[in-house]
């Protein structure tokens, strides 16, 4: 099924959790990042059990330089 991650299209398996998407699809560690799905924050403890659905819009945020 199709989802978007930071406005880019990705194809993932059915029943893929947020944790699964981060490690398997994007190959990024969860350190220092925040996840929102459809403008709603998914907290770290929820990552393994929050299952993504087709059409979900995922936003991944991290720190950057700023004043």
């Amino acid at each position, binding site marked *: 099924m199709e989802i978007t991650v930071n406005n880019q299209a990705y194809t993932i398996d059915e029943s893929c959790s947020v944790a699964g998407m981060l490690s398997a699809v994007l190959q990024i560690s969860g350190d220092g990042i925040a996840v*929102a799905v459809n403008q709603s924050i998914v907290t770290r403890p929820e990552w393994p059990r929050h299952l993504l659905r087709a059409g979900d819009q995922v936003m991944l945020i991290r*720190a950057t330089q700023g*004043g």
Partner: protein
Amino acid sequence: MLKIADKTFSSRLFTGTGKFNSAAQMEAALLASGSELVTVALKRIDLKDTEDDILMHLQHSHIHLLPNTSGVRTAKEAVFAAQLAREAMHTNWIKLEIHPDPKYLMPDPIETLKATEELAKLGFIVLPYIHADPVLCKRLEDAGTAAVMPLGSPIGSNKGLRTIDFLEIIISQSNVPVIIDAGIGSPSDAAKAMEIGADAVLVNTAIAVSGNPAVMAEAFKIAVQAGRMAFEAQLGLIHSQAVASSPLTSFLDD
């Protein structure tokens, strides 16, 4: 020692991480500054460059992170950004910045007050970036702000303390720490801010865009210490006429 919420700071120089040429240059400057509170912004992860992580350059035990909400336009967006920052950085401290106008980056006082009320209720330690408005500062205190961060002049302008008359009013009547933020262009500006009784200053551009950020950071560190010492030692009064420093004895007269 400066205390904000539950944290004490031995350095009254807070710094930002923006505009440095490289992460190594930034880290060197932050360490030279002695700063214990360092701002960062939020961004969407670049999925083509997932190694790009500023936090690994900020992992020093004396450095606390202060994420900001730069990029939001409303109180609602600011609350969302603060929650994202808390998730990503495990801190409930937030520098609240709501400046919808990209030309002057003037903070929106109405949205800022609304967001402060809401974030304080949600348990955040809120440090709002605001205009040098003494009335707004009192309203923010009522809303539960942890400090106020009035501007000296527009962000990144290096124009110094153009709002000084209003900063003095804010300082004279504030019950929360006053951190002068934005526009401080030189160590002498920072010293002046401390001399008039600011609790701390936040400096970013003036360090980052200088010819030698690490040396400039140290110059700011010394200036902030000097300004604070002068404030604590109590400056002499300003007079409109001369007041002789030497005895006016007429020793040449017969």
